């Protein structure tokens, strides 16, 4: 094992992750190379320093902050709430609406022109007070409208 290869293995050696043969070869080299030993010690100190970093903790009201954030996201105007924890994304709602509008448009286009009018033809009725200035003469009544087929 050459020195460069040995340097590459220092990290794994400190992790205790080296194959027995590599470990023995490295230890033999370490025994006779003070520079390599110094490298190993410096690396060991670095790992110890990393491991000794204090555990940072979140604020005491972390859970309630998360819950609030979750609630805010549920109430987002871009999302339609569906049940307690289910959401229909805004994009899906938009697609559904576009689909409905498109379907309506196609239906209207496909219908024959004379059926596209939504209001049935209503026969003109005489004004209620048509005979008011006619000496009270009653006009003959129109027959009742039959709107059924």
């Amino acid at each position, binding site marked *: 094992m050459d020195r460069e290869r040995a340097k590459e293995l220092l990290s794994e050696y400190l992790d205790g*992750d080296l194959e027995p043969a590599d470990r023995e070869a490295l230890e033999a080299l370490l025994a006779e190379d003070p520079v390599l030993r110094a490298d190993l010690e410096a690396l060991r100190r*670095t790992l110890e320093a990393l491991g000794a*970093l204090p*555990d*940072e903790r*979140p604020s005491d009201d972390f859970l309630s*902050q998360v*819950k609030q954030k*979750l609630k805010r*996201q549920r109430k987002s105007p871009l999302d339609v709430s569906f049940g307690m924890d289910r959401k229909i994304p805004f994009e899906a709602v938009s697609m559904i609406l576009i689909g409905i509008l498109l379907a309506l448009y196609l239906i209207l286009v496909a219908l024959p022109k004379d059926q596209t009018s939504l209001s049935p033809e209503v026969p003109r009725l005489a004004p209620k007070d048509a005979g008011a200035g006619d000496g009270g003469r009653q006009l003959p009544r129109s027959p009742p409208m039959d709107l059924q087929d």
Partner: protein
Amino acid sequence: MSDQGSTPTAPEAESPDGADPVSAELAAGALSTEERERLDERRLIRRLKRGDERAFATVVRTYQGRVFNMVFRMVGNREEAEDLSQDVFVTVFQSIDTFRGDSKLSTWLYRVTVNHCKNRLKYLRRRKKHLGRPLDEVAEAELARGSGSAQTTYHAHIPRPDEEASGRQMEVLLQREIAALEEEHRVLVVLRDIQGLSYQEIAEITGLNIGTIKSRLHRARLALKEALERKM
């Protein structure tokens, strides 16, 4: 630094008659601690998938320390870390249906955390907001600790004042050098050397193979070692 093993969780399965399989297994006989933990976790995941808010609170309380510590070491800023950690748990709750149970919940949670960190760092880089802030935050954390804040716990013994001063100096220095690492190296240092995860777990979290993890981690450690040697 503890080395946690990785035991993949079996996909959860409901019995056809609706009976709780976990209770059945518990009733069937004594289980090892590991098996019991795995079953507890499966039960917790089922409750989460049903939208049980108490289960969600349990998950937050259990993992908030680990998630926050990891995020803080990644972004180096308490305010960002708090916001980002909250986002992690919101994502967990909203995406729990996509969790298949092939890995441990903690592994999946770390994966969500890593993704959030990467996205936030990218965003911060674009906004150029992070420049100069991590150090401010460490200094702020130090001040808070000096005034008796309960936000930080120590692994080590109660230090003498001179030890404490050099410990803080080392922390500031380390945090600065961690922040200077390339993002993909920083993730590995945080997961392995600060969070104490196994290579197998890191591979599951990052999707990298173990050989790549080892070589990148070695380069990251060397960079930190050289930086510390220059500055100490």
